[in-house]
């Protein structure tokens, strides 16, 4: 079977990896000239945090996302399994109680334990929640690693191709275009997220941190070599425009509250991604004519891509077992 996947974002690449393991001949077409530049995944946090996400997401997200950590460990050696630490400042500790009531698989930690986990935060927070099984990765390196892996097994990615699904010469088309697929998926909407990349060589953090606040929460994901990704905005619009001053202030203030040394950090990049979402904020995999749509991963691209890719593979190859679904590494 000849399959063309439209879109080399996280949904497209992970789906390609899943299908390649089942014997399909795959080609990927991508409208950007280079990997990632038009993909919202490029601006993602890269948190593999199925249990933290329970605080706001439908239960299905944790169910679908639970297998993601193992998948990424298997396919990307840069996957860091050091858990997530959730903290709140003095007057906001009530937020931890609420967060804890809605999530699972965590340990409550006190000031001493927080200091043991992240020495930089010693004495700064009195209470926290530690989710030891969660993980994170650098989305850009992860996408590059998947692209290289696909290249190595003969899956080509053609860049600069704005494909029309109806005209592609293939037995099967998989539409992984994200928000660009709104031209055919009318109930898809864009949800904007903004991120700031900073270099703060003075700060040593080894795992994802989330600071809870009634208004301005933030997450900090270490990228290594003193670089941190700060994120947190979730805006109901599909503007790709630059980061607003208000959002930047909110994110940077929150990071500063987490650790004052962020005040000395250098801002390397301000980025915006528009995440594709259906009204229930849950992903969908469904066939429409010759096209299989894989879309609506919302803010859970890296967390849910392995599960939706597997669903796509099971629709196209109903007789292959899950055991053969992974390409050998």
């Amino acid at each position, binding site marked *: 079977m000849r399959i063309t996947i439209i879109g080399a974002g996280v949904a497209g690449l992970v789906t390609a990896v899943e299908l390649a393991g089942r014997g399909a001949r795959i080609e990927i077409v991508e409208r950007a000239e280079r990997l990632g530049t038009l993909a919202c995944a490029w601006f993602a946090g890269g948190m593999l945090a199925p249990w933290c996400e329970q605080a*706001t*997401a*439908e239960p299905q997200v944790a169910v679908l996302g639970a297998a993601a950590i193992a998948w990424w460990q298997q396919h990307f050696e840069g996957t860091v399994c050091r858990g997530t630490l959730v903290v709140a400042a003095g007057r906001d500790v009530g937020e931890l109680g609420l967060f804890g*009531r809605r999530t699972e698989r965590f340990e409550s930690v006190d000031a001493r334990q927080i200091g043991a986990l992240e020495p930089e935060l010693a004495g700064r927070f009195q209470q926290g929640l530690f989710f030891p099984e969660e993980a994170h990765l650098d989305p850009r390196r992860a996408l590059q690693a998947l692209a290289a892996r696909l290249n190595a097994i003969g899956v080509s990615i053609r860049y600069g191709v704005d494909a029309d699904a109806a005209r592609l010469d293939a037995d099967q088309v998989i539409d992984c275009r994200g928000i660009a697929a709104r031209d055919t998926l009318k109930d898809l909407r864009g949800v904007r997220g903004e991120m700031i990349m900073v270099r703060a060589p003075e700060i040593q953090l080894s795992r994802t941190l989330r600071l809870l606040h009634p208004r301005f929460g933030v997450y900090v994901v270490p990228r290594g070599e003193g670089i941190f990704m700060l994120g947190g905005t979730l805006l*109901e619009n599909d503007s790709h425009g630059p980061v607003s001053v208000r959002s930047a202030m909110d994110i940077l203030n929150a990071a500063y509250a987490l650790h004052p040394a962020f005040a000395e950090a250098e801002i390397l990049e301000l980025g915006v991604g528009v995440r594709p979402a259906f*009204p229930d904020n849950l992903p969908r995999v469904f066939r429409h004519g010759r096209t299989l749509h894989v879309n609506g991963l919302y803010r859970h691209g890296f967390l849910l891509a392995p599960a939706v890719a597997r669903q796509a593979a099971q629709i196209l190859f109903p007789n292959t077992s899950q055991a053969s679904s992974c390409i050998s590494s």
Partner: protein
Amino acid sequence: MNLYGIELESRLLLGSARYPSPALLADAVRASGTDVVTVSLRREGGGQRSGQGFWSLIGELGVRVLPNTAGCHSVKEAVTTAQMARDIFQTAWIKLEVIGDADTLQPDVFGLVEAAAQLCADGFEVFPYTTEDLVVADRLLQAGCRVLMPWGAPIGSGRGLNNVFGLRALRAHFPDVPLIVDAGIGRPSHAVEAMELGFDAVLLNTAVALAGDPVAMAAAFARAIEAGRAGFEAQPMESRDLAAPSTPVPGRAWLP
């Protein structure tokens, strides 16, 4: 309840921010039975019409939209946002917020009166988010407002009615103006209390949106507001210092 000439069945007005998903928002709106949903323009707008995806989902709910100027800190910002809202939602209704303090999100009542006067003169039907201050309320009515929305407590704080005395005085001073308690409601019991004081309606958002089960909470508020209103209309008894037996002694069965 009649707001600016529109007859409404439900005495609950529901905000549309911070729900886990638009689908849950839609379910909560249905469960609440509300006729009016507020929508924030400023924060979600992103300029031009880029919030259309979310706004069209709101449009499909089949309820009246009350756009708001949440997050505006100046008269000019609030007026501009109101004008944008009128274009986008094709309504003269505007929930006017002019925030004076970033920490408590307390309204800047001076800016509020000024913005209300400008908007009313421009044909808007203004729902001002204000404090329980009587004099400010009077100025807002002079500016042309025909509905007032005093706070219960700071936005999103869930503290209930902070100043029951002030709210009661407001109700007594303006018996014929629709008064809607806006902000600070955390639990259904707070809504009951507001309705028992004789307020015409309650506007809330966070209490439903951030509940563990927003749909069930929306239904709980709907019942609370009905109960509170029914209790008010039924003219509750006065509380007394002296116990008064509900069964008088002479009527009690005599047991040897």
